[in-house]
């Protein structure tokens, strides 16, 4: 049965394989050589965090061994080197997102902090009682809770774009939600629980017609599809370094300079102040106004290396490869009796959420782990999605460009084993 779809997909597969030498790429990731419970690690939890190529690990290692110093405020040589390395990373992010100005790139801890920063700084200044904020039904908690907090504080209302049973947003419902009370729209680019790629450009364009700014949660999208913030015309875009093959503790918030400039600071401290007296404070210019205290310098440097690495492979090649692998995995999973895929949108990337008749997701996770297969199980920080599909939890396999068909086969074999155990 599986042979048939392999034949169908084989041509496209060979094409994407040609542009991306996965065996060589796997050599770049030291952890992929590791064994778990005596089995080779099959890492299919990339939506939670990605693995790091050696160049990223080495960049951080080299930073601490050769350049480490605090930045910006120092005159000495190391401080200049460290500042150059950190600001160099910012310039790389700017290019990566095709932003027009490095001032629009703020380093944060991760996507969650980026969204909180906007909710707190923009939200508390520009959103008032009686206003509406729109999110979607497939948001991660990090794109719901910050807005709930703002709503509660200022007396605004959270409106939700519903989705259909495939996990696609209902655009006509979205248009109905947009009105003169709408002050902000915040949506995910790629759902972490369903894999749906949302038509964010269209969402932004509709919101802009009503003069409403849009934040895009790019935690899942940035590592897998090419993002061009100027083409999208989004007002804010947030992503995490650790999901993009970079270190933990570093993320990016892109914001249009005109908006960032109008926003009050978020955290107070060193490096975000230009002149300070007890009577008045002059904040620094962008982006430093939003980067209080010593930042995660080494993390920024590591993220720069990750972007270089990804650029070297090419996001287009990554996306094409992953698309083929997802098609292969989807067909393979569909052959398993009693397995239901949650999230079957037409536009999908890299995420396979599923439930298995009579087996809780956690049990699937534990049994697969015994075979060295790492997937995630649970609500994926998207409880409203679980509620919408009437499941307590799902098992989720999420792909990256270093995954192979053999690993997908191992997953399928593992699930077969789960079924045996529970039969």
């Amino acid at each position, binding site marked *: 049965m599986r042979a048939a779809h392999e034949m169908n997909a084989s041509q496209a597969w060979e094409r994407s394989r040609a542009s991306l030498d996965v065996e060589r790429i796997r050599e770049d990731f030291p952890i992929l050589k590791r064994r778990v*419970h005596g089995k080779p690690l099959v890492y299919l939890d990339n939506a939670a965090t990605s693995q790091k190529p050696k160049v990223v690990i080495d960049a951080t290692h080299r930073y601490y061994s050769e350049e480490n*110093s605090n930045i910006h405020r120092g005159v*000495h040589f190391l401080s200049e080197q460290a500042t150059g390395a950190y600001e160099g990373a910012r310039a790389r992010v700017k290019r990566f997102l095709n932003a027009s100005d490095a001032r629009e790139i703020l380093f944060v801890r991760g996507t969650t902090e980026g969204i909180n920063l906007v909710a707190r700084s923009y939200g508390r200044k520009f959103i008032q009682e009686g206003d509406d904020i729109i999110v979607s039904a497939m948001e991660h908690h990090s794109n719901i809770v910050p807005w709930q907090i703002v709503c509660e504080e200022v007396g605004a209302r959270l409106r939700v774009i519903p989705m259909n049973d495939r996990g696609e947003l209902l655009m006509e419902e979205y248009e109905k939600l947009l009105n003169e009370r709408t002050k902000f729209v915040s949506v995910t680019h790629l759902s972490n629980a369903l894999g749906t790629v949302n038509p964010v450009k269209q969402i932004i364009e509709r919101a802009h017609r009503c003069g409403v700014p849009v934040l895009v949660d790019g935690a899942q999208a940035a590592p897998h599809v090419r993002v061009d913030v100027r083409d999208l015309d989004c007002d804010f875009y947030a992503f995490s370094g650790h999901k993009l093959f970079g270190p933990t503790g570093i993320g990016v918030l892109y914001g249009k300079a005109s908006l960032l400039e109008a926003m009050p600071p978020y955290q*107070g401290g*060193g490096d975000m102040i230009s002149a300070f007296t007890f009577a008045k404070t002059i904040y620094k210019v962008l982006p430093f106004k939003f980067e209080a205290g*010593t*930042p995660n310098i*080494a*993390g920024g440097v590591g993220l720069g290396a990750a972007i270089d690495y990804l650029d070297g492979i090419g996001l287009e090649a990554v996306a094409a490869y992953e698309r083929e692998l997802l098609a292969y995995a989807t067909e393979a999973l569909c052959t398993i009796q009693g397995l239901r895929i949650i999230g079957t949108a037409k536009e999908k990337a890299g995420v396979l959420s599923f439930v298995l008749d009579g087996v809780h997701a956690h049990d699937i996770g534990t049994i697969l782990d015994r075979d060295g297969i790492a997937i995630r199980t649970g609500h994926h920080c998207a409880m409203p999605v679980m509620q919408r599909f009437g499941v307590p939890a799902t098992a989720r396999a999420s792909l990256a460009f270093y995954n192979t068909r053999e690993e997908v086969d191992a997953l399928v074999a593992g699930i077969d084993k789960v079924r045996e155990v529970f039969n």
Partner: protein
Amino acid sequence: MKVASEVPRLDVQRLRADFPILDRKVHGKRLVYLDSAATTQKPEAVIEALSHYYRTFNANIHRGIHSLAEEATEAYEQTRRKVASFIGGVEPRSIIFTRNATEGLNLVAYAWGRHHVGSGDEILLTEMEHHSNLVPWMLLAREKGAVLKHIPITDEGELRLDCLSDLMTARTKVVSVTLVSNVLGTINPVREIADAAHRYGALMVVDGAQGVPHLPVDVRALDCDFLAFSGHKMLGPTGVGVLYGRPELLMNMEPFLGGGEMIREVRLDRATWNDIPWKFEAGTPNIADVVAFSAALDYLEAVGMDAVRAHEVELTGYGLERLLSLGWIKIYGPRDPDRRGGVLAFNDPEIHAHDLSTILDQYGIAIRAGHHCAQPLMRRLGAAATSRASFYLYNDRDDIDALVEALIAAGKYFGRNTRVHPAG
């Protein structure tokens, strides 16, 4: 305070071998790193722990049940326990991982302050605070209509506790003080201030960024309610900070950031919060750096914080003596090394701190020059900027000698005719 003879002397030469960066040359000269108050260098063990994490068990924590996720979670939570023990054996749930000390102080000012400080209430700080312990309170005071007050300092840079009874009132809601000044080096009598704060029902917050890395610290002995510090200032990686908070306070506080991991349940119209400390750790935390921070704590414990302190007292005493012997250097802060940490702020009256720093850099000496993010203090000292040399366990007398020689040489460029007396 223990005296040097009671604790083992540091074998600095041996310690230095653990820090790869100290082998490097700057402008062809041996690197003399005297900027540890800004950030410290990292021992091989910390750098290696970080690489090891990514090479062998990198995974997202808490929410996973696969082996890597379990290993990562265990390593992350083990660091929390280690931190709890490092600051005097508190409950691990009172330890929140932040980005840095600044974020910890912002967290308190925001999540506690906005619900407990109202119009006309008072926030008591000091004249020697770093901006990170000023601006969060200023933002709070501005929002709530509260009043900021400051404990003044003496000309030697010590807090005037005699003013405390006049400054404290029934409206004082919070007192926030640095344990060690990042400019003056002054070690503040935090316990005494905490007792006064508690008598008035105020909260005691301590900025430990310069204190925790250099002194043995026991939060119960200090009797503070919150203590914030940064990992990168104590041999750890950048991007990790710690906020200790009394659990009773943390439990009753609103969250700081919203997101994954900090919730118990989310519906589209409401959410309930997770237990502490996770309520305050929204999103994927800085797992790798927290795990590597553990190696920094191990390193410091192996050396012994008493030994670190004794070493810095000795070195600071030597530094004070040598700088003062030059005759033209003005030093800020207490003269007694037992009353201060290893931070020496100074000025050459003829050479601006910034110029001095540039010249010293050519000699391979890294110091900091500027306002050190303490502009109100600079105004109090009547200096636009100072130079600052700061020490840690890898510095020795040779480093100070190199500094002094370069200070003499710097005079040349500015036309000083110096007849230097040998060190006395």
